[in-house]
């Protein structure tokens, strides 16, 4: 599955105009040298595995079998349902997230408590999805003694024996979707807020001056000039992000209902594990084509929209939203806090109490924390994950900076082609190509090692980083480039100087990459080995005995979430500014 390419889509879907190009071409030799590391990593760990997967989908032991695997894969029991569910996820969930995100961004603007509302909404975005899964499984626990939602339903329906279980076969997809929406709305709010802040106030004033209603303001001053693009971007982001449901399904669903919640990502993993077999490869190719085609459609749609006006500061005099709207935003914030409260409360029960009684019935204590910190497992995992995330972030930044520099000077069709290729690379779901990636890692004797794990993370992180940095470089005003070229005589110094002008973009990439690696489950699941037990994998392993381990699991989840939330919340301004700077112009 692909990690969230986040706001960078703004940048990458939007070609930079010719006037700002062609200022300082690096020499051809240097260009290749700068591109080589990124090309090697992407070619070896993404492009080649994709080709191998395509080949595996039409052959058996090297013999051509045509569409046989496709037919078998699609007619096997449960496959149709999984495909349907994947499509449902990709259409329904982004719609809900987009609408909610817009409403909450609009409702929390220019009000005193707005920052707090947005702050609360953003926290779930930074949580590892494993933690989100643990949280919602606690919330929906089928035992009314432990699950507050089940207790509420039992109370509402009055028949504890006939309570509809949210984790039961009929509602499990709804349950997983609710967890996903909870986690992703914050991101949509961030993007919409950035977009709304760039809506020129004079345009709004003009519409008002001509007697326009609120609806006219929305339509003429927001929607047509800017929001259409933003909506498309958010929708596409979330649609690609729904491939991350893998983590949630794996953590949230007991084995008996896993099929009722299954999507393509899970099915491919179930049928092929870390290898590539015919049917798994066929499903993977179908998925790959669908994801890439979807992104292409959205990017064309975005290019046809109006060019947005330059961003401008919003005058402070603008009126805050109506009181009722503000109240709704506040209510949403409270609702968003509830799951976090359940997680914290469960972690404050002793392991035995957390498994046997309601978290609201006993006094809080630190026994679960003591239990989880007393063992070596969590410490080792935390340390390893921190090291992994730091190393991967550093390497991705270096490689991407080198590659982004020459790519920023490209113009016309080559620039578009590179953009599309990077875009496609950024959305490749890693389950699809896990088998061939393992073969490549095997050649380098690094399969199942920490080094192999880091290599995969690096390869997966580069496309997005290059896209963001390329757009940031391409946006640099001409005089700055000239100053850089004149002041420093060598390419290396020029590059260093340019980077200094783009601190926000660099910080944004660094923060996102760090959080990405820290929060990962699937790469760890597919590629970790003896000396590599990353945090997501460590926590997910413990969900096998969910109820007995819920106290220590909740405590471990809280500890695992502190750093990514801190980094994300502190860096959120930089993230938005850095990513959008390259994109909206």
């Amino acid at each position, binding site marked *: 599955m692909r990690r969230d390419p986040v706001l960078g889509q703004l940048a990458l879907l939007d070609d930079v105009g010719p006037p700002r190009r062609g200022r300082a071409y690096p020499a051809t*030799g*240097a260009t290749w*040298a*700068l591109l*080589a*590391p990124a090309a*090697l*990593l992407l070619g*070896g760990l993404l492009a080649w595995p994709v080709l191998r997967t395509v080949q595996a989908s039409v052959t058996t032991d090297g013999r051509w079998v045509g569409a046989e695997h496709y037919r078998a894969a699609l007619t*096997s*029991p449960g496959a149709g349902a999984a495909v349907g569910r994947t499509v449902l996820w990709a259409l329904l969930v982004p719609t809900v997230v987009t609408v909610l995100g817009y409403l909450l961004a609009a409702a929390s603007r220019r009000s005193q408590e707005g920052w707090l509302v947005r702050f609360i909404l953003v926290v779930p975005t930074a949580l590892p999805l494993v933690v989100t899964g643990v949280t919602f499984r606690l919330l929906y626990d*089928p*035992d009314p003694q432990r699950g507050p939602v089940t207790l509420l339903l039992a109370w509402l329906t009055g028949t504890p*024996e006939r309570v509809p*279980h949210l984790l*039961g076969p009929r509602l499990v997809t709804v349950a997983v979707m609710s967890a996903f929406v909870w986690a992703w709305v914050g991101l949509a709010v961030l993007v919409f807020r950035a977009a709304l802040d760039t809506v020129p106030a004079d345009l709004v004033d003009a519409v008002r001056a001509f007697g326009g209603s609120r609806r006219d303001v929305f339509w003429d001053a927001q929607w047509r000039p800017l929001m259409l693009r933003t909506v498309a971007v958010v929708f596409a982001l979330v649609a690609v992000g729904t491939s991350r449901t893998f983590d949630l399904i794996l953590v949230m669903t*007991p*084995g*008996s*209902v*896993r*099929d009722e919640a299954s999507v393509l990502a*899970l099915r491919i993993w*179930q*049928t092929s*594990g*870390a*290898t590539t077999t015919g049917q798994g490869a066929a499903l993977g190719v179908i998925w790959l084509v669908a994801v890439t085609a979807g992104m292409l459609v959205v990017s064309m749609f975005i290019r046809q929209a109006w060019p947005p006006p330059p961003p401008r500061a919003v005058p402070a005099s603008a009126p805050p939203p109506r009181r009722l709207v503000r109240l709704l935003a506040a209510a949403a914030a409270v609702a968003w806090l509830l799951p976090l409260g359940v997680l914290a409360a469960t972690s404050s029960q002793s392991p*035995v109490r957390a*498994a*046997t009684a309601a978290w609201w019935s006993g006094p809080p204590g630190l026994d679960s924390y003591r239990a989880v910190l007393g063992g070596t497992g969590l410490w080792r995992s935390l340390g390893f994950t921190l090291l992994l995330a730091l190393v991967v972030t550093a*390497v991705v930044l270096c490689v991407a900076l*080198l590659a982004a520099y020459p790519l920023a000077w490209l113009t016309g069709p080559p620039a578009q082609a590179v953009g599309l290729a990077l875009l496609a690379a950024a959305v490749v779901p890693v389950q699809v190509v*896990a*088998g061939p990636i*393992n*073969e490549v*890692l*095997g050649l*380098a*004797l*690094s*399969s*199942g*090692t920490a*080094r192999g794990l880091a*290599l995969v993370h690096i390869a997966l992180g580069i496309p997005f980083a290059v896209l963001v940095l390329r757009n940031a470089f391409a946006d640099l005003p001409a005089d700055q480039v000239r100053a850089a070229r004149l002041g420093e*005589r*060598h*390419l*290396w110094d020029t590059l260093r100087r340019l980077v200094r002008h783009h601190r926000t973009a660099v910080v944004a990439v660094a923060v996102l990459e760090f959080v990405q690696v820290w929060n990962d489950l699937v790469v760890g699941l*597919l590629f970790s*080995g*003896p000396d590599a037990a990353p945090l997501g994998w460590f926590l997910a*392993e413990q969900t*096998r*005995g*969910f*109820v*007995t381990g819920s106290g220590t699991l909740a405590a471990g989840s809280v500890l695992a979430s502190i750093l990514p939330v801190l980094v994300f919340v502190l860096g959120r301004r930089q993230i938005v500014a850095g990513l959008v700077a390259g994109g909206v112009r």
Partner: protein
Amino acid sequence: MTAAGRLRRRTLLRSAVATTVAGAAGCARGPRPVQVAVVWSGAELTRFREVVAGFPDVRVIGVGNDIDAFLTARMLAGTSPDVAILPRPGLIVEYARRGWLDRVAPASSYLAPAGMADLLTVDGHRYGLWIKAAHKSLFWHFPSMLAEPPRTWDALVETTRRLGARHRAGEGPAPLAVGAADGWVLTDWFENVLADIARPGGYEALARGEADWQGPPVRDALDRLAELWSIDGAFPGGGQRALLTQFEESVIQVAHHRSAVMVFEADFVDGVAARFRRGTEPLVTFRFPGSRVADQPLVVGGDAAVAFTGSAAGVELVRWLSDAAAFRPWLEAGGYLSPNLVVPVNNYRDPLRRRLAAEFRAVEALRYDLSDRLPGTFTGTDGVGIWRIMQDFFMDVTDGVAAREAVRRATGQLAEAARAAGSGR
């Protein structure tokens, strides 16, 4: 560009390439510890680490349930561990046929029971040695809640009916706790009933994929299960709730909440029960009831050690593990049952294991866990194979589907899964 500039550019180029190549190629493998991949986690993993502390320089890797995916990937990548400990003889036979394993020879003090040893041989050669066993024919209960345990299947059904009726009236706990969210719990039920019903050769034929999954033994076994599972009020919270109950939670329902009277599962139930029991009364066991009281077949599970090709140290470690003395730390800590009949019964610290070990020696017919012997995806994991089929069956019979229809659907699915697994290789 100046010469100096050119030089710096070249340096940059070279360092960039060098970095990438170094990162991709890695350094050559030096002398390293003997790697052992295991499915265990938690306390079991800790105990096993204590065991191998007696062998020089061993590194234990807890891989979790997806050990097949892990080993296959590592094999394809050429970085297999030296030794793996696998719960599935079916998998071991597959690996051996693909030429991934080295032959192993047991220590002189090693003797596995007849029903187990021959599962690990291919063409007369031995590719794995049993190092841990599980007794899978046990029911657990508090004596104070069930004074007279049922000794035959009919008595179990009768007891369940009686307690179920009382439970429906709100006057007592449900008769049975079952962790149906874990498919392996249901396959263990099925295997115990099947072992009782099928002719001696019939069970083995199903395991080898030679028998018909729609034939009488399978149908009769499912019929029996349907009779018991469909009893109204059999499970605390009903069938839907049972499907969301994991194995360990089902033990808690008996040991802590006392909301159910009996729970069926293997000897490792006592570990969970010890953590969550209230009061001082210990849980006691009775044998999974069959149609007759005497000489019932015993269903067992186990873990076997294998050595991957080209690792002399691996072969040596497997031999070492098969020695009767190797698992002494775990024996003394409790919670370990040895498949090695040479281990003296008196070496067991806990009375339960001592009794079970004696039963191992006394029993005439030993049946190895069927679902662990099935090939490919038929063997089951969460949402896949026989685990999934048994869960569907459980869902049907607890949801009011007629037994005949439920059995027809389940046998159809089983036959289909057997065919798919057979043609896939």
